[in-house]
């Protein structure tokens, strides 16, 4: 599904990612831990193809196709869907309009019954006519981000801290929806998480730890999280243990 090979990325002239490699097979959920500023978001935005994230060497493959030099929207069309940590507020563009863009629906068409059910499950029916993210709470933003991806139906969900700043109920909803999407569609998910709260709801296969632009160890999510909680990220840097999948 997704393969990142020895990726080096510069942002504003500074090397942030220093040789990152990872593989996310079809149907699997992987998570990534790491301290603030370690390069997690940079990796996600580089995979999604954001301008300003210059790949100086290495490659990104989606379903064996090299997407390293494709535009953001071309990657989206090939099946990458990203939920942002801090999505922008856009005046005059409604959440309902965003959902139609994501699913390629005609802006004039309404939502059908199953789409409305999905929207209601996310508790966002009252938000369809509101400008996207404008005045949304933390939890509402995260739910709105994920809901957009549910309409986009990507092959790979790229989720940047879907569990930060959300209440317990939203967390549960978000976690369950991600899990059910992956299970039902046999698509994949790559999730950045700080506290790992969302792991309670995900059947995540593997986790890795990013520190200072490199991946330092990987293995089963729960055991890695335990180690981080116990000894901090410094230990990960030293341990450099890569458990076989």
């Amino acid at each position, binding site marked *: 599904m997704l393969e990142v090979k020895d990726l080096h990325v510069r942002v504003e002239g500074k090397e942030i990612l220093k040789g990152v490699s990872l593989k996310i097979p079809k149907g699997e959920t992987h998570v990534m831990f790491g301290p603030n500023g370690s390069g997690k978001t940079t990796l996600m935005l580089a995979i*999604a193809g*954001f*301008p300003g994230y210059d790949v100086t060497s290495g490659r990104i493959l989606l379903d064996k196709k090299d997407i390293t030099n494709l*535009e*953001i*929207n071309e990657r*989206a*069309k090939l099946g990458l*869907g*990203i939920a*942002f940590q801090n*999505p*922008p507020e*856009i*005046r*005059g*563009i409604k959440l309902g*309009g*965003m959902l139609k*863009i*994501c699913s*390629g629906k005609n802006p004039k068409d309404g939502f059908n019954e199953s789409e409305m059910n999905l929207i209601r499950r996310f508790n966002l029916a009252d938000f369809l006519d509101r*400008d996207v993210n404008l005045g949304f709470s933390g939890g509402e933003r995260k739910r709105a981000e994920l809901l*957009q991806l549910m309409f*986009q139906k990507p092959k790979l969900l790229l989720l940047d801290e879907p569990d930060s700043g959300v209440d317990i109920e939203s967390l549960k909803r978000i976690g369950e929806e991600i899990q059910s999407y992956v299970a039902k569609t046999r698509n994949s998910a790559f999730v950045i998480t700080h506290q790992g709260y969302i792991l309670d709801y995900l059947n995540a296969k593997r986790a890795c730890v990013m520190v200072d632009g490199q991946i330092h160890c990987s293995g089963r999510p729960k055991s890695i999280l335990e180690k981080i909680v116990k000894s901090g990220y410094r230990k990960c840097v030293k341990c450099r243990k890569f458990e076989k999948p």
Partner: protein
Amino acid sequence: MQEIREALNKKAKFGEDLDLRVYGRKAKKRSRVSELSRIPHDILKSAYETGIREKERAGSFFQIDHSAMLSKVNEKFEGQVEVMTVKDALKKYPWLRDYYWKAVDVTADKYTARAELEFDDGYFFRILKGAKVTFPLQSCLFIAQRNFNQNVHNIIIAEENSKAQIITGCTLHQGVERALHIGISEFFIRKNAKLTFTMIHRWNDNADVRPRTVALVDDNATFASNYILLNPVRSLQMYPAVFCNGKNSVARLNSIIHATRNTNVDIGSKIVLNGENSRGEVVSRVIGRDSSGVIARGMLEGNVKTGKAHLECRGLLLSDNAYIHSIPELIGRKEGVDLSHEAAVGKIADKEINYLRARGLNEEEATALIVRGFLDVRIMGLPEKIEDEIRKLVDATTKEAM
């Protein structure tokens, strides 16, 4: 009279000073018609672009050059509204003299003076006491004669406890070379009345436009004015003012300006709070493209302790050769008055474009969508049907410009 003649040499405070000798005053005389459908087809077609409709209107007024051709109240609305030419109305109602030039100062500048000395009629809309008019009234002021100077004078009275919408379109034959439209509009919003006035301008690269508008708002009354300019204009300067004289009176002035090509406009909105607890709100959205220049003024004047008003001006610049000059002004004269403003001029944030691209849109589609959203018709608080009509106009014009 002498004073008015002298005012003919008086430059306006803002905007390019126009030489009035450049424009002609002769145009074909057109006779009155009884139905909108009797207006020449090509002219009517242009009028549609400014929101004029044959159906679902309470009454219509149509003037071409100096000829008022149609003034008609829809049968269903007789007894609720009156629609007349101002010349007819002045003859029929001697009391109307007490309104004529009472809100706007005839000696304000050369354009007001010209409008009086070379008066070409205009519309009189009277919404009768207590009438709740469910369909909008409409008017169209049209220039068909090349090089013509059209001088209209409109009087609008919303009587006590009435409620109505007016849609007005000002436009010309797209082929007209050089033209000057001067439009005087005087609004009187009586106690507890509510009037929403939506004006759509559609000019061309050769048109000069000088509207002069003042509204007086009484106790518990609301005046909402929406202005829409989507197409190029050679020069346009206006600074409509609303005086909230009554207690609890409310004024809302919204404008959507899409400046393209060599458009050169100086557009302001002024609200003066005189009445106890009066409220004001100015919202404007300006897009600057190509080589256009927009000066967006705003003035809130608070002369009463309990007055409160806010001004919001957002500009989006889409070209290096265009400029947007935002000038918000606040004058407070009584302790306790609450006036505020926020103004921003910028470009489309990359973050917003990339967000939409990540959902599958290409860069052009994303830009178009953000521009469309920026020119948000919802700020005008119009009934759904009219909002849809105006949104369609905005969408069509912005699409064309992309």
